[in-house]
């Protein structure tokens, strides 16, 4: 069992979701984040005072997957989230030791 986490551009979330569905992934968890990186930020101006905002809205997508599916899922996300411009984000994989579905108490691959 692995946890695939992806940080992607917000307007790409819909595409990522679609790509994952196409892979048969039936669930995921999404949250708002802000990213700092090469992409740089932007400047806001309030009464003439400039504010450099270097955190850019991103979305975190988390998917629990079977060990076997990891590579295709990572590839699908990477594909779907790519615009080719700086700031497209990262995908990473972390080992998971146990998963439980709260409703039923099922564990492991059954649980996702």
């Amino acid at each position, binding site marked *: 069992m692995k946890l695939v986490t992806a940080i992607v*551009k*917000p*307007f790409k*979330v*819909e595409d990522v*979701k679609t790509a994952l569905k196409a892979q048969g992934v039936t669930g995921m968890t*999404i*949250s*708002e984040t802000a990213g700092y990186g090469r992409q740089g*930020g*932007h400047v806001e101006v309030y009464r003439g005072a400039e504010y450099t*905002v270097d955190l*850019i*809205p*991103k*979305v975190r997508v988390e998917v629990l997957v079977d060990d076997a599916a990891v590579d295709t899922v990572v590839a699908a996300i990477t594909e779907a989230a790519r615009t080719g411009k700086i700031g497209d984000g990262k995908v990473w994989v972390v080992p998971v030791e146990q998963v439980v579905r709260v409703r039923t108490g099922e564990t492991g691959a059954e649980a996702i």
Partner: protein
Amino acid sequence: MLADVLPNDAAQKGVCAGMESALNTGDTAWILTSAALVLLMIPGLALFYGGMVRGKSVLNMLMMVIGALFIVGVLWMFIGYSMAFGYSYGNAGLLGNVTEFFALEGLMANNPEAIYPAMAFVAFQAMFACLTVGLIAGAVPDRMKYSAWMIFAAVWAVLVYFPVAHWVFNFGVGAVPADGGGWLTKLGVIDFAGGTAVHINAGAAALALAIVVGRRLGWPRTPMRPHNLTLVMLGAALLWFGWFGFNAGSAVAANNTAGVVFLNTFVATCGAGLAWLIVETMRDGKATSLGAASGIVAGLVAITPACSAVSPVGALIIGLLAGAICSAAIGLKYRLRYDDSLDVVAVHLVGGLVGTLLIGLLATEAAPAGVNGLFYGGGVDQLSKQAIGAFSVLGYSLIVTFVIALIIRAIIGVRASEENEVSGIDLAEHAESAYELGDSGAGGFAGIGHGSSGTGGGKS
């Protein structure tokens, strides 16, 4: 038109010139302005209430108040005005003749003897009816079925508000004092702008309805804090602003009475705001913005019946007492375990009682109403009249509201499903959610809470 030219209307008016018309344009201007001000109180109330509920119920809160406004507005045109301001059946002072002004028949004509246009007064009073019904909604947010609320609003307006408005606001016809007028007016109860007909009336109905609808899931264990206090303050501000039309507009003239009433309304509100903050500071250690907003409303409620009867110092005392008593009265619901969610009882019923009864003590002959209360040597006469007025409205409203609510509950039910209450009544009853703020920053944010896939226009 060119600026140096008289419009047609103006030519016919001939103020001072031959008196073709008794129309007083200044009074008319003030009545029209006041009517607009009172209209604004209604969304003001909706926002005041809306800010106090949770984010998942704010639209329903707005819709209860605004939906009631729509329906009561239409009812008012057809029968409400006539029931309130028609000649009293049998001169009993209980109900106006429904057919007299049915659909406002005959009120459109330019009556040369009228000081102000009949329609201006009809509009002004329409807003009172709509507002009063809206006030009740504060007792039952988060959980009442919307259809049941809309039916309740219509029925309550007809069976409770229109009659009670007749009792209190109908001064009768022409030379004979109170001929055809309401029984409380004939009795000599002083209620300048609606402490009884509006606030005690709505407050008592709120109590009955809260009991019939029942408590919110989790109340009082689960905290349900206001979701947007800037909205609450904005609502309170619009209420205060509009209330000058409500009170000073009730002079139905731009005269000295209106001036006194205006000033008293202002002073009482300041006093009530201060008092609420002082009570909070003493009790909780902090003065809150919700307290300030609540104090504003409590003061406005309490001065409403009394604004023409007291001096500025009297108004201040009423304000201070209203602020202190209403803020204490909020504890009642926790003790008696009824979930009057936004404290309509503590603010409008209690505040209305404070103002209506204090007239009996603080009224002074020097004020426009020209009556002395107990403390000014007037004895208990006025006080007992005030008590009769206050408690007969309270009793009538409480009982009839109970009956209406129980019947609606029996026939179609009054509660949203538990699931809908938990997940949020905005979504369940209105298929909307109030905010999608995630989308604001930089970056084309699809909005997480609503990463929705649209079928724009699929049905429209």
